[in-house]
């Protein structure tokens, strides 16, 4: 099928990509805030299922696409220190949020339960980040493997 010619010039294309990128992140963070607010408002799992599914699809799409393209972080060097910082922020965020949630639920030992969940998130984040870095590195090695110049540029 013949691709329709774009009405935009190069600069407009770049601007549109930027607008679409901002739209993606707006949807991502907006959904996250809505989900957290709904959890605090004591909504049932069924009530927030739609938002959860879209949120996870957005996240998984981003991670899988980046792994496939072999594109790592734009600015950060994903070393052990960075992974620990990212995981700590995630763990701390979950610990604080869960503590607030359990306090609002009048549960027993809300801070302890929040901390345990935060620690779990920290460990899980560390593992996922390490896995992500390894997959991206492996993909980059595959993509950057030198092709044979004698052959056609199919391995471009």
């Amino acid at each position, binding site marked *: 099928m013949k691709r329709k010619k774009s009405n935009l010039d190069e600069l407009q294309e770049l601007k549109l990509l930027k607008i679409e990128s901002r739209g993606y992140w707006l949807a991502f963070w907006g959904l996250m805030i809505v989900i957290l607010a709904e959890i605090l408002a004591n909504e049932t799992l069924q009530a927030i299922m739609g938002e959860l599914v879209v949120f996870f699809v957005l996240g998984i799409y981003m991670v899988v696409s980046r792994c496939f393209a072999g594109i790592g972080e734009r600015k950060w060097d994903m070393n052990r220190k960075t992974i620990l910082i990212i995981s700590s922020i995630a763990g701390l965020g979950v610990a604080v949020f869960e503590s607030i949630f359990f306090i609002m639920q009048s549960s027993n030992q809300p801070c302890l339960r929040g901390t345990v969940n935060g620690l779990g998130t920290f460990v899980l984040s560390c593992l996922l980040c390490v896995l992500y870095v390894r997959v991206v590195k492996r993909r*980059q090695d595959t*993509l*950057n493997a*030198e*092709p044979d*110049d004698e052959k056609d*540029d199919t391995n*471009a």
Partner: protein
Amino acid sequence: MRNLKMKFRRIELNMSQTELAKRAGVTRQTIGLIEAGEFNPSINLCIAICRALEVTLNDLFWEANGNETEKE
């Protein structure tokens, strides 16, 4: 359109795509896609490639007519 001039110049200098990519400050994949005509580089990247290959922009990227670069 494939950029055969760039590919031939690189081979003339006995340079791999990886070496050229390193000199131009991009990934090997980018060089491969430019040579295959699947990616249009920015003028800054064209200049970096020309510097790495010791040629001018005209030598690699100018087409006097459509026959100079191989059409897909």
